[in-house]
């Protein structure tokens, strides 16, 4: 899988590098749940700035990641949603569930620091 998982100050940072196939999204989902249950980070920040499309499958998968990491005590924040992707999500009637959003890494980490 092409997505690096980076540990920083007990937070897990996940910079998605490009458009992901459904298979790669599922792998990322599995890898994140494994990391969270084994490493117990304080939270997860996923950067989607380089993602080409946020379609139903991607929004669902990321929301599901948020659901499970929250259950494990590590909330997820999605950062870097470009305005055209946000507008497209809205027009498609899609919304993230169980994840917070923030403009960038720094703000995402602030959200997580405030929620623990």
């Amino acid at each position, binding site marked *: 899988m092409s997505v690096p998982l980076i540990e920083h100050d007990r937070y897990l940072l996940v910079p998605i590098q490009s*458009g992901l*196939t459904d298979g790669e999204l599922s792998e990322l989902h599995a890898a994140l749940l494994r990391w969270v249950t084994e490493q117990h980070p304080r939270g997860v920040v996923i950067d989607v700035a380089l993602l080409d499309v946020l*379609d139903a499958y991607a929004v669902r998968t990321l929301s599901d990641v948020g659901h499970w990491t929250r259950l494990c005590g590590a909330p997820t924040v999605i950062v870097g949603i470009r305005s055209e992707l946000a*507008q*497209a999500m809205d027009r498609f009637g899609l919304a993230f569930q169980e994840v917070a959003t923030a403009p960038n890494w720094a703000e995402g980490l602030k959200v997580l620091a405030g929620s623990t």
Partner: protein
Amino acid sequence: MKMTGSEETLLPVSSDQDIIRARQKGRDLAAWADFTVVDQTLIATAISEIARNIVIYARRGTIVLTIEEESDRLGLVVIARDEGPGIRDVTQALRNHYTTSRGLGMGLPGARRVMDDFAIESKLGEGTRITMKKWRTKHLPVTDVTPP
């Protein structure tokens, strides 16, 4: 990318890699045809949804991208074809949150909502053909603009 109304891009769709390729080609064509960045994203996302439907329900099919030109407007046309099982109830398939496989049925209603034209022809046992179009008004040629 050079492309006129008569040329078309034919994309085979049978894997999740093909879904990405199809939506990226769609975005490239929309950018080339000078659609706004938001429209490019809507088109790419709609292609992603219908390409995924092909892979899930029919396993393989094709997507054809072309530009249609009218006197005052320009359309990006997406035609998705497959020879899969067909859709039993098209009205139902276009309803929000309807799904029959892996909970991914958001695709069709979403694509219909964001595209300007959207039509489904489907026959059970024969396949499905979805035609969707996004239009933009033509920019005035610079020579037509008279200075005040």
